[in-house]
């Protein structure tokens, strides 16, 4: 009862203060100040957000630097003939603002994991690898491999320039929507965990309802 009364009094006092017209500050100061503060806060927020959206930020944790980043380095997404490469956020953070915010909120779990050292050794990481990978597969399956398609557009794929087996599979399964990129390309950028019982290839495409 006492706590309730205290809460009510505090809220009322706050509202009274908040609702009262300013006695010393001018309208110009308040509007312009609010405008400038808005710019500063919004800009600061976006700058901080973008700073967490860089590869240097990701690999500043040894968990990422020693495990997944090391593995990425040998793949085509890091080193290739033309030198165009994907960084961590290109595949792991959605590009659209709303989805990005959602993912960033989910990422607070990763901060938790960092603080409580869930994967701070190679052994612990390997133990959790299947679970971690399954999260990413589920995400890419649910959004029809959106992060792949940010760069790899089926309409721009020249199938005649692909190896014939790749062209065959893409024409028969990707184009028809029977399978999405991640169904066949699990482990494209990192080593795979024990895949016993995990469907790969066209079986993976058939095992879940297609988003099309």
């Amino acid at each position, binding site marked *: 009862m006492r706590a309730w009364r205290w809460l009510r009094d505090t809220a009322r006092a706050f509202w009274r203060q908040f609702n009262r017209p300013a006695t010393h500050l001018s309208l110009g100061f308040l509007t312009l100040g609010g405008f400038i503060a808005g710019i500063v806060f919004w800009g600061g927020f976006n700058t901080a957000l973008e700073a967490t959206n860089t590869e240097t930020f990701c690999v500043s944790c040894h968990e990422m630097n020693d495990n997944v980043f090391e593995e990425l380095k*040998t*793949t*085509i997404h890091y080193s290739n003939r033309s030198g165009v490469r994907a960084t961590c956020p290109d595949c792991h953070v959605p590009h659209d603002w709303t989805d990005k915010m959602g993912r960033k909120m989910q990422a607070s779990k990763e901060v938790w994991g960092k603080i409580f050292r869930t994967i701070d050794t190679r052994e612990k990481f390997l133990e959790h690898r299947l679970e971690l990978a399954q999260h990413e597969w589920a995400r890419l399956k649910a959004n029809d491999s959106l992060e792949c398609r940010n760069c790899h557009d089926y309409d721009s794929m020249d199938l005649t320039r692909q*190896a*014939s*087996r790749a062209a*065959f*599979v893409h024409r028969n399964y990707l184009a028809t929507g029977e399978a999405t990129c991640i169904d*066949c390309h699990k*482990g*494209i950028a990192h*080593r*795979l*965990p*024990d*895949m016993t019982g995990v469907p*790969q*290839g*066209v*079986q993976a495409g058939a095992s879940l309802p297609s988003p099309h």
Partner: protein
Amino acid sequence: MRHAMKPVSCLLAGLALALSLAACGERAPEPEVKRPAPPISARGNPAQEIDGMRRHVPVDVEITPLPMATVENFDRTRGRAYPMQPPTIPHSIDGYQVDLNSNRCMLCHARSAAASFQAPPVSVTHYMDRDDQFLAEVSPRRYFCVQCHVTQTDAQPLVANGFMDIDEVLRSERAQ
């Protein structure tokens, strides 16, 4: 005349400032990158040299490596170069993970997946254990594909191969 001088002096001052700033910036010297010398050989065509490492060039002469051969990636089955040869892989297998955790080859070449990918299925013998019992999956002793099946590059053969298969031998004997 004085009006005309003003922009000129401004320009001069600007130039002097730019020059002094450029002189101040102490930049680390760029690492010197040398263009590789063309591959050499003491006996003619370096690609045909059997001594691949030094190519018979004296040890006090610097050797540049030959261009790396590219893996053939045309998806056409090759003939065998000797009897019982394991079929060679007619495509590149860059980044294919074949280890305890996963076998990328079996994604397409497993007997259950071969039809949907139009890939040649693995022979049934690969599903048999050493007691000739058939297993549901590829046998552990056949699991590591590249132990026998390998890719081919476009490198020049260093030694000529005079292999004739038995049909050819019989045909030539019959012709005599």
